[in-house]
């Protein structure tokens, strides 16, 4: 297998071309890394070669490291995986350092060959790190191509020299946003960040020209010259000191202390800034190994990269023919309908947006207009794109416009009678083979399907709000839903570039059934006199983006009260949330409905900006003298969700734990560092979790009773990803 090819052209420039076999995107394998070294050696030894240009034969330069490599090294290294990972990383440093030194004399820095990287398309991870080791980087001017170091988003950090090289190049202050936010940047932005040196419509030609004109001095890195000083100051330089004090504080507060990779990255930069470059690379390798040994990084890679991609590529798609959506009908132009229209039109799908009167339909369409206007003002969209998006949306009251739609998404008022009426009316108009989906978040799909004459073509497609921001779409199979409806939904989600999970039809499906105990546990604690700040902070300290009280203010108390009444009626004696409802109903009586009424658990100013907690809470529910331990508060919030996920698996709502994990993170922001509820349970171990359930149930009630499945797994000391690997084909 050869992934790199060497050709020396007539001008004496060796072009090393990356063209990974049988892949559409270059990802670096272990073997290929060895080949890079071999080709560099060859080119450096060849007297006919004046310089080297590294580029790619694909549309893009590189996607990064093959992430399975890291897992396999860990697995192969037997008793001492840290040694295996460290050795592997150090070998990478050795190869890139050889490339960087390019055969020059150690003392005089003379006699090396210039090496430039022609970044012909998108370039990420190790691709960018190879480029950074080169002496010059030219990138294509195509604004759709992006370059960056996104490792941090997967719970690791650039460990192929990228952290040390880039911080040594531009200084800690300038490197921080690129390394810590992991943003992929268009060529212009990358140029101003210092990540690349030039932008050109023909990067290979420009790189060649640079190589042919480069002098000995041009190819010596600043840190290989005498008297190197880190730009902006090393940590114990007065200016550098302030930078590093601030950096620690900001990394700590931005990550709520739960992302080990960000801390490790910063330590590598800090420690690396105080020693010679080769020692700095060794330090980077030590911290990189440390992060790879942390179970959080493998869990994040598994859920947020490997399994997310698998789901997007249709891992659970029934084997039926292509169901790409051509024209979609959206019923109801409220917030959800407007958002669904927007994301569909942006994906190039024709949209018919229906509402009862033309004004409402137009308002729904204008949502797309103002979204695109915002994009234009932020230079993220063009007026042409706006025109195109708007031209695809037909806002109308006329149901006959739906006659040639192949997918309908109903997003009308959450009332079964209203929905049933719409289903009947619309099914009479749309093609016989069209799929009809409901965007309901609370009503059982099988019940709604009773209004349909074609229940096998009836399905739930549950979007999260705001539609254009939330990456997850929950697809719900009713009792009679057929494969083609599932395939159509999955193909549609792929078209709008979101991530799907497919679940079965039970109360609140998957996501909402897990969020409800989170919110309810939080509200229940308010009733017990727990400091509201402790409740929300406890959640944030677990890595949840929004605490339960803030969340309920956003979703509104009256919605909570409505759900509570319905659930109560349905569950009868099994209902466990009486103590929660007392608070919820009281808040509703007080007219404190949340942000929309500018009054909820929080106070809000005139403009709706959140202020402090409402003082009235403490009058009604006096602050307990003995506040609970943080860990108890956290576990009440966390186990509420996790156990609900286990029950969803137990009851068959979830068919694949990968969907449970990916869905939890993307759907409601479940602690991403954990990799999702099932990954978290595997991390802490079923025996510990079951024991903790018993303690929590004894102290805080039925909600925390250990599900039978978890109990059984605890007894057998099983992990979810091993036990469910065969049916889930989980990585």
């Amino acid at each position, binding site marked *: 297998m050869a992934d790199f090819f060497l050709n020396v052209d007539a001008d004496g420039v060796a072009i090393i071309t990356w063209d990974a076999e049988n892949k559409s995107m270059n990802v670096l394998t272990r073997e290929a890394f060895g080949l890079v070294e071999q080709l560099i050696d060859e080119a450096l030894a060849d007297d006919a070669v004046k310089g080297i240009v590294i580029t790619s034969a694909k549309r893009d330069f590189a996607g990064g490291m093959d992430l399975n490599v890291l897992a396999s090294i860990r697995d192969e290294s037997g008793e001492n995986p840290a040694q295996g990972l460290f050795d592997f990383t150090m070998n990478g440093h050795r190869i890139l350092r050889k490339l960087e030194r390019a055969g020059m004399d150690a003392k005089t820095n003379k006699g090396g060959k210039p090496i430039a990287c022609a970044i012909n398309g998108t370039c990420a991870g190790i691709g960018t790190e190879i480029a950074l080791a080169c002496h010059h980087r030219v990138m294509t001017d195509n604004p759709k191509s992006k370059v960056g170091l996104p490792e941090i988003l997967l719970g690791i950090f650039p460990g192929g020299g990228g952290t040390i090289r880039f911080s040594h190049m531009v200084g800690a202050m300038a490197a921080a946003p690129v390394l810590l936010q992991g943003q992929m940047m268009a060529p212009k932005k990358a140029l101003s960040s210092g990540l690349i040196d030039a932008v050109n419509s023909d990067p290979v030609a420009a790189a060649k020209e640079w190589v042919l004109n480069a002098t000995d001095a041009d190819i010596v890195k600043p840190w290989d010259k005498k008297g190197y000083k880190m730009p902006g100051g090393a940590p114990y330089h007065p200016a550098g000191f302030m930078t590093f004090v601030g950096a620690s504080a900001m990394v700590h507060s931005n990550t709520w202390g739960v992302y080990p990779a960000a801390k490790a990255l910063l330590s590598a930069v800090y420690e690396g800034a105080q020693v010679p470059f080769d020692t700095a690379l060794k330090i980077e390798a030590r911290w990189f190994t440390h992060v790879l040994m942390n179970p959080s990084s493998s869990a994040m890679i598994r859920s947020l990269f490997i399994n997310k991609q698998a789901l997007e590529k249709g891992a659970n798609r029934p084997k039926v023919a292509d169901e790409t959506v051509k024209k979609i009908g959206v019923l109801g132009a409220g917030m959800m309908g407007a958002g669904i229209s927007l994301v569909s039109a942006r994906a190039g799908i024709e949209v018919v947006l229906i509402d009862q009167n033309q004004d409402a339909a137009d308002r729904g369409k204008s949502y797309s207009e103002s979204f695109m206007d915002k994009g234009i003002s932020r230079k993220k969209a063009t007026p042409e794109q706006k025109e195109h998006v708007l031209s695809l949306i037909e806002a109308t009251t006329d149901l006959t416009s739906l006659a040639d739609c192949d997918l309908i998404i109903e997003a009308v008022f959450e009332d079964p009678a209203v929905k049933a009426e719409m289903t009947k009316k619309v099914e009479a108009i749309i093609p016989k083979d069209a799929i009809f989906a409901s965007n309901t978040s609370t009503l059982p799909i099988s019940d709604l399907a009773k209004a349909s004459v074609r229940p096998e073509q009836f399905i739930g497609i549950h979007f999260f709000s705001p539609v254009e921001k939330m990456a997850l779409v929950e697809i719900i199979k009713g009792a009679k839903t057929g494969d083609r409806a599932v395939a159509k939904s999955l193909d549609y989600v792929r078209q709008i570039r979101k991530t799907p999970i497919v679940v079965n039809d039970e109360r609140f499906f998957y996501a909402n059934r897990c969020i409800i105990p989170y919110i309810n546990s939080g509200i229940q604690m308010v009733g017990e006199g727990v400091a509201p700040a402790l409740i929300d902070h406890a959640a944030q*300290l677990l890595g949840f983006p929004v605490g339960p009280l803030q969340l309920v203010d956003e979703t509104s108390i009256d919605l909570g009260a409505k759900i509570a009444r319905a659930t109560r009626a349905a569950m009868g004696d099994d209902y466990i949330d009486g103590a929660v409802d007392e608070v919820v109903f009281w808040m509703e009586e007080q007219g404190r409905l949340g942000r929309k009424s500018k009054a909820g658990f929080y106070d809000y100013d005139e403009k709706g900006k959140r202020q402090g907690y409402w003082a009235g809470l403490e009058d009604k529910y006096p602050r307990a003298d003995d506040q609970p331990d943080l860990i108890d508060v956290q576990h009440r919030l966390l186990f509420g969700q996790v156990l609900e996920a286990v029950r969803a698996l137990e009851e068959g709502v979830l068919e694949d734990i990968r969907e449970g994990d990916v869905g939890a993170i993307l759907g409601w922001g479940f602690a991403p560092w954990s990799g999702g509820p099932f990954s978290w349970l595997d991390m802490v171990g079923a025996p510990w979790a079951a024991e903790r359930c018993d303690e929590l149930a004894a102290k805080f009630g039925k909600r925390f009773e250990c599900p039978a499945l978890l109990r059984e797994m605890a007894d057998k000391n099983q992990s979810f990803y091993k036990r469910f690997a065969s049916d889930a084909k989980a990585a």
Partner: protein
Amino acid sequence: MNEAYIYDAVRSVRGKGRKDGSLHEVTAPRLSAVILNALKSRNNLEGHAVEDVIWGNVTQVAEQGACLARTAVLASDLDESIPGVSINRFCASGLEAVNMAANQIRGGAGDAYIAGGVECMSRVPMGMDGGAIAVDPAIAIDNYFVPQGISADIIATEYGFTRDQADALAVESQRRAKAAWDDHRFDRSVITIEDINGLSILNHDEFMRPQTDMQSLGALKPSFKDMGEVMPGFDKIALMKYPHLERINHIHHAGNSSGIVDGAAAILIGNKEYGERMGLKPRARIRSTAKIGTDPTIMLTGPVPVTKKILAESGMSISDIDLFEVNEAFAAVVMRFMQAFDADPDKVNVNGGSIAMGHPLGATGAMILGTLLDELERTDKETGLATLCIGSGMGAATIIERV
């Protein structure tokens, strides 16, 4: 066990710790030497008169570097046979020097010591010595590092102290310091700083602002609000550590926090035989000493646990103490001490403190112990306790008894 006695205590006047401060022209070795010389001449410390000079000093770089204690001995009239050791327990360095000296004597290692300290904050600014605690991510993050001012505001938030209460304490510190100076209560210990020709450079604590009132303090902006709420946002670190708090109440400012000043202080400590041999009369017995580590984020609550510890170890209760010196690093530190022990404000810092007169880091501990002793004598009381809060979460305390 030997007993350790205080035979004499001196301190310099305090100069504003800025470029326009009167002592800015005086080097740290010289300021140290002037104080050491004063102690020498008052007590006839000829030859190898003491075992060691234990010298508290926080920012041990530049002219305060390279064992300033020994440099100070060489710069002074003390005999070269007397060594010197610089120590750093941040703001309690001066008191820790005394405690170490006392415990050496009690343990039998030498008859007598000079203990004290110096800080020329105008010349060697705070923080110039770097320090990993604030800047090394692996340490700063794991320990929820925040700067001291944020810690002081956390104390105020956690224990419910208002801006008005803090300002009132500051006004009272200024009033008491002025009254003490007017009443010549510091005369016995204060050393005027003179130049090489014997000309006076400074003869009073120049940081004091006796005209301070609630209104003038009310006009001051909180000092730590921006670094707390905006860049780099230390409040969030505080809320992560103390999640039951909703927000940090920023009450401290330049007027209710200790002043940045230049100053030095020295105390002569010896056993009983030493006094007899030298013809010196012991003024007080160092009854007990203590130090403790505490939560590094709220950082400055150390005086409470260290006082509990020293009382327990001495078999005493809070009511056995006649007078307290609690370093006024920040108003909330003293308020927390008084709250925890229900201490009578009329017994705490009766002659003002660091808010009015300033806090020369390495010297303050020795200064307040001397002030405490002078006041016990003046009011003919028996027992006093001095304590300081300390950076990175520590506390130190000393109990003295008149003999």
